């Protein structure tokens, strides 16, 4: 329990919103970690630092050495504006930085921005930049570079893959230079979560020089703790410590990255002592299980594999039928069996428990076969029905599909599986020519995001581009607006609770779990950090 004086210290840091949060914290409604995350969202970074949040226990770490990393094969030329694959994100995080880092443990952390604040409407956000930061080519980072970086990302002509993330939030001309060290963003609509949108969560939002010409692979010119030594397309890259880095200098001398076309080869190279860090998959985890030479590091993510139910197509036009299918699933068993406990149970909404705005008071849906059968009877299909589940051959999804198939049988629902190669499943990713968006029942993989906003908008709003459930619910759309306008955590939670309750009742999606994101590292290295969307932070790595 926090002492009274502590609480009083926390007050009066910022406006009413902050004080509401402090009250919630005092009443035990908000965990300390959540409060600190919230402080970061409001731009109270000085406060958070004073609470010792952003300064992990300092360890007398050894410097020097080369960290050897195995990654997959980047799918295309590495350019922050266009990257989409984990390997490219892993490479880019050696040299590139964001205004803010969304750390899986500590929430938003100031990097190239030192503080930020919103106006009353949360439509205009102002960011103060860190003074004196230099690109690897020696030029100083100014507001002009930051604005140009964001303008590039919201420009459809740039081939930016962040366009869908900024849709409806930031458009061309929205980012403005206030002075050399201040940037303002005028948003398309109020958004109290905007700091997440300029953080590492939008992995394309790396700050590059204003005159950046798309040839990142030539120079890898960023502001990060490492700078380019050599890059060989399709083979790998090496980076060396950046002696002019604005923050704590990197501990290792070098980082050596090797690209692999085959995960089996990756784990063999790790076992042979030729690599220190590799990405992890369920299969690879089995290969190193119980081996003291390796450890598995995990961070909880909001990644999930929603099953969508076409609300506009039989048999799922009746919400009782949708609810029945959701009730057949034993979520605890899925988390324990399929995901080896490296996940948390989901409640059929995108509000992962790791989001502070999620309302924890909404009751958790549990397996209830009797209730499922009763609902089916009420809906006029007491003996169940036949349906095809279409999905992709990716990650654990095919196994998850078989598990759903088996659970559904218990209520008489007969699911046929149609598992496609990933490319084929996504098709052209537009309605009418994509098994993902057209299938009656399907499972899709969604990676981690720092806020639930993109899931709520793109997958469930009636006009959403990824609305595979074809969910068209005016009440939901209205609640979403309310959620977007909410300025304080309590209001956000209130709106979130309503959305969660509505989604449980309607069940356009079944979300059984939110997975963790893992990497396999050698026991010889300490201090490997990463985000749930594949950033790999190696500046604090030391060798034991």
């Amino acid at each position, binding site marked *: 329990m926090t002492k009274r004086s502590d609480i009083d210290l926390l007050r009066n840091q910022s406006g009413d919103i902050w004080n509401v949060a402090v009250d919630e914290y005092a009443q035990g409604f908000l965990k300390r970690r959540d409060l600190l995350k919230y402080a970061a969202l409001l731009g109270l970074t000085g406060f958070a630092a004073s609470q010792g949040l952003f300064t992990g226990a300092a360890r007398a770490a050894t410097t020097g050495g080369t960290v050897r990393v195995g990654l997959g094969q980047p799918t295309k030329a590495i350019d922050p504006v266009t990257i989409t694959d984990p390997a490219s994100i892993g490479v880019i995080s050696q040299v590139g930085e964001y205004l803010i880092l969304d750390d899986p443990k500590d929430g938003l952390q100031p990097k190239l921005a030192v503080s930020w604040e919103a106006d009353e409407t949360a439509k205009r956000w102002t960011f103060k930049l860190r003074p004196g930061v230099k690109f690897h080519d020696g030029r100083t980072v100014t507001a002009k570079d930051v604005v140009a970086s964001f303008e590039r990302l919201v420009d459809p002509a740039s081939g930016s893959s962040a366009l*869908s993330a900024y849709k409806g939030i930031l458009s061309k001309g929205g980012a403005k230079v206030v002075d050399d060290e201040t940037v303002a963003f005028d948003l398309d609509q109020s958004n109290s979560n905007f700091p997440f949108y300029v953080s590492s969560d939008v992995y394309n939002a790396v700050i590059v020089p204003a005159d950046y010409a*798309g040839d990142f692979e030539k120079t890898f010119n960023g502001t990060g703790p490492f700078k380019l030594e*050599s890059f060989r397309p399709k083979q790998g890259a090496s980076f060396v410590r950046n002696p002019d880095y604005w923050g704590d200098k990197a501990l290792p001398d070098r980082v050596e990255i090797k690209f692999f076309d085959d995960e089996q080869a990756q784990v063999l190279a790790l076992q042979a002592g030729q690599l220190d860090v590799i990405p992890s998959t369920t299969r690879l985890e089995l290969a190193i299980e119980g081996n003291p030479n390796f450890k598995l590091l995990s961070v909880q993510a909001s990644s999930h594999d929603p099953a969508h139910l076409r609300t506009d197509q039989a048999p799922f036009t009746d919400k009782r039928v949708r609810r029945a299918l959701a009730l057949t699933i034993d979520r605890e068993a899925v988390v324990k069996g399929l995901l080896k406990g490296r996940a948390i149970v989901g409640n059929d909404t995108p509000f992962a428990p790791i989001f502070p705005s999620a309302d924890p008071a909404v009751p958790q849906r549990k397996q209830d076969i009797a209730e499922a059968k009763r609902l089916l009877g009420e809906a006029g299909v007491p003996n169940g029905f036949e349906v095809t589940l279409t999905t992709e051959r990716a990650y654990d999804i095919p196994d998850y599909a078989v598990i759903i198939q088996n659970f559904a049988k218990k209520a008489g629902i007969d699911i046929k599986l149609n598992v496609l190669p990933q490319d084929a499943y996504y098709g052209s*990713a537009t309605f009418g020519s994509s098994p993902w968006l057209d299938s009656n029942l399907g499972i899709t993989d969604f990676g981690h995001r720092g806020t639930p906003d993109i899931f709520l908008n793109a997958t469930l709003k009636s006009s959403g581009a990824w609305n595979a459930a074809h969910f068209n619910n005016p009440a939901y759309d209205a609640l979403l607006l309310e959620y977007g306008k909410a300025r304080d955590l309590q209001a956000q939670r209130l709106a979130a609770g309503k959305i969660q309750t509505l989604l449980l009742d309607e069940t356009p999606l079944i979300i059984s779990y939110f997975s963790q994101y893992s990497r396999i590292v050698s026991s010889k290295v300490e201090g490997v950090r990463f985000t749930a969307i594949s950033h790999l932070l190696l500046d604090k790595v030391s060798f034991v």
Partner: protein
Amino acid sequence: MVRPLAARAGALLLTLWLVSALVFLAGQVLPGDVGRVMLGPFADAQAVAELNRKLGTDQPILQQYWHWFSRAIAGDFGDSLSMRAPVAPFVLSSIKNSAALAGVVLLFLVPIGIGAGVVAGLRSGSLADRLIVLTGVSLSIVPDFVSGLLLLMVFGLWLAWFPISGAAPDGAGFWTSSYHLILPALPLVLNLIGYVARMTRAGVIEARGADYTRTAILKGLSPAQVLFKHVLRNALVPTVAVIATQSGFLLGGLVVIEALFGIQGLGNLVLSAAKARDFPMLEAGVLVMAAIFVSTAAIGDLLQALLDPRQRRRNAP
């Protein structure tokens, strides 16, 4: 000798043109367009359309093909769509890597395969013969990705005699590079050795029973002379053809081994280009493969002609 060569060259060009058109057409059947594949399924439709416009992949297919073809004829294979850099260096380095691997494979395959085949052929019916044939057949049944993994585990991981990766570090010399390729070459050698040995054996048995061999023995030539001048020279004709066609496969068809050992060869290049709908890269890769297949077959024919006096006479002008 000139006319058949000209005819061959003409056939080669026609083959290449047909292959290039087929690859282009086949690419149109793959799901998703170039922009969509490059930006991923979650990218905004507007961005995808814009990228397709930029790359010219929104043009009618014939126009796209003509655009590519007219430049390819002049030797310009264009820029890779996914790597955003000229295609040629990628293709050339992948040919080099594939050729190095194929070279190491042949270095083991030819002497051991032919040697085993000769032993089996000369002692047909003996225990040695049966062992060679049986081992060869058994080895060729094991797929290369299985034997590759096993060899990696045993020689790369447990014994650590060989490096795990087939790609030597930057600036490695000839010997180091070759050393890195021994482990990736082994599964292929094991896979093909039985085939080469059986072909050789059949040729040896046939040549031993032939009239010219009997004549040579009766003429009083030493056994060694009989073996090298008469038996082997005739026996190896089909084997040479087999090795030639296998070389084509070794240069372009090793997707699995290349992926497993991290060798950036032709097979790997073509596979990743197909995945990325990277047509300039795919076209260049496939054309090189086709050219290799056609020319190794031609070289095989030529070697056969040199070994077989009857064929030489047939091709005489």
